[in-house]
């Protein structure tokens, strides 16, 4: 029998009104504006875009404001929003080799063509809190340096010339990139679907798994071949025009992880690779993604699957924080009827236990 119980409308209404009040906070403090979030909380905006899997800085800022800064809640809001919109199509592939670079480093080649460009990085800061930021102290304009516009080839292409490193990944002839927003996942996956899942996966979850590979669970001896951050053009082919349209540019972070060797009787040993590509400026996520991508290629590369980070079904099924939070957090919603059934069951089990105990005592007494 199913019994519907109604109630709590007024409580819910008032709770949401209270939420709106607490979100606003002290009315004497100015309300935070979306452009302030976009400009000054830009890495939070980037994380919401990456894991919300929707590139739109203003929307991500709105989601952050609405979620009171709870980024997973904000990601949830963005994911819900995207379901209300029609899909116009699939863009042409982003050409990260043509990126307008804002940061580009390699841990494998000191003197790479185009140079090591540090960009706006936290690296080499002392991680000391800066009390001046508490005030509105004017900030100087950044330095500029006139340099000829030299090409910045990808490190993997430089290494690739000698065949010392495997090529960019290909899919079987005629394969169309899978899309997990359209088709439910069925394991095992091809690398394209894994990369899509990893690109929207939770940064903390992937960071932990990436760290586990460094600590010896599926060790792959990684080096950062290259990290590059910058803007790439987006092009879309549309039915009404005979040429691909430029829609604008987006900022992405790309990580090329170079890992230890693979060879066979037919092929001399070469470096293997893991790949990370993430919306916005997020090199921790891009690095984690590339380490997880490499670990998850164990089957393809004929490696023993011994560690969690190599377990595709485990990693991909638990990497999405909207799914994870939905299932974990649903536990707090009313389960009164379920729990009533459990209570009933445990009462019967306890009664049976008691009966058995008494019967046992009687048998024992009779035997004596």
């Amino acid at each position, binding site marked *: 029998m199913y019994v519907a119980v109604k109630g709590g409308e007024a409580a819910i209404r008032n709770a949401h009104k209270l939420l709106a009040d607490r979100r606003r906070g002290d009315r004497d403090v100015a309300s935070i504006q979306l452009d302030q979030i976009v400009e000054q909380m830009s890495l939070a905006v980037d994380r919401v875009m*990456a894991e919300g*899997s*929707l*590139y*739109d800085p*203003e929307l991500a800022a709105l989601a952050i404001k609405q979620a009171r800064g709870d980024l997973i809640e904000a990601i949830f809001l963005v994911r819900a929003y*995207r379901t209300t*919109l029609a*899909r*116009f199509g*699939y*863009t042409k*592939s*982003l050409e990260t*080799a043509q990126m*307008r*670079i*804002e*940061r580009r480093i390699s841990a494998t080649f000191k*003197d790479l063509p185009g140079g*090591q*460009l*540090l*960009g706006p990085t936290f690296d080499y800061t002392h991680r000391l809190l800066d009390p001046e930021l508490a005030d509105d102290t004017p900030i100087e304009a950044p330095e*500029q*340096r*006139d*340099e000829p*516009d030299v090409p910045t080839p990808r490190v*993997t292409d430089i290494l690739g010339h000698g065949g010392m490193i495997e*090529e*960019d*990944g*290909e*899919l079987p002839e005629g394969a169309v*990139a*899978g*899309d997990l*927003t359209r088709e439910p996942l069925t394991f095992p996956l091809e690398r*394209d*679907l894994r*990369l*899509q899942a990893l*690109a929207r996966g939770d940064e903390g979850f992937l960071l932990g798994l990436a760290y586990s590979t460094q600590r010896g669970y599926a060790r792959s001896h990684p080096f950062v071949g290259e990290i590059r951050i910058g803007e790439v053009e*987006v092009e*879309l082919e549309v*039915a*009404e*025009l005979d*040429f*691909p*349209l*430029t*829609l*604008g*540019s*987006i900022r*992405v972070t790309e990580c*090329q992880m170079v890992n230890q060797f693979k060879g066979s009787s037919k092929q001399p040993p070469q470096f293997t690779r893991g790949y990370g590509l993430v*919306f916005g400026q997020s090199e921790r996520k891009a690095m984690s993604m590339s380490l997880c991508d490499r670990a998850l290629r164990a089957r393809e590369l004929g490696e023993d699957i011994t560690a969690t980070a190599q377990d595709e079904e485990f990693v991909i099924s638990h990497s999405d924080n909207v799914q994870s939070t939905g299932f974990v957090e649903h536990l707090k919603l009313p389960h009164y009827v379920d729990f009533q059934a459990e209570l009933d069951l445990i009462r019967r089990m306890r009664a049976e236990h008691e009966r058995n105990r008494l019967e046992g005592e009687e048998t024992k007494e009779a035997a004596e």
Partner: protein
Amino acid sequence: MIKENTQSTQTGGAPDLQRKAAMALLAQATAQEIAAFWAEWSDKPDVETLRGPETGLVMLRGRIGGGGAPFNLGEATVTRATVRLGNGSVGHAYALGRHREKVRLAAVFDALWQRPECRQDVQQGVLEPIANRLKQEQEATRAETAATKVDFFTMVRGDD
């Protein structure tokens, strides 16, 4: 879909490339600047909106390893519009984001650009200012990035 039959898309080749470049600049205009160009535009034509402006999504694709097979990276919001001017010229626009009025005006300027008598004015009054702003912004970013380039030098140790 509204298929073009204006000269520029029929002939292919160079005119297409010119229009592609023009539409790319219009897509990258800011809402404010394109509104200002339209406000200054003399002899405004009648504009009929055939589609939109409407916001939807595109799925952005990356490439495995940076240059390999495509994979689906994530989506972006895109707004598109199609307009017809009083003289029959049809213009399209698509741009990242949700700025509907900006995209509608971009479609208007695309339609104007296709009219030989207007092209020069669109080029000078609209496209060039957008191109100049983008160039300045990109060069500033490049120079700022270049200032963070590491110049390695070797320390000479010991006394020789």
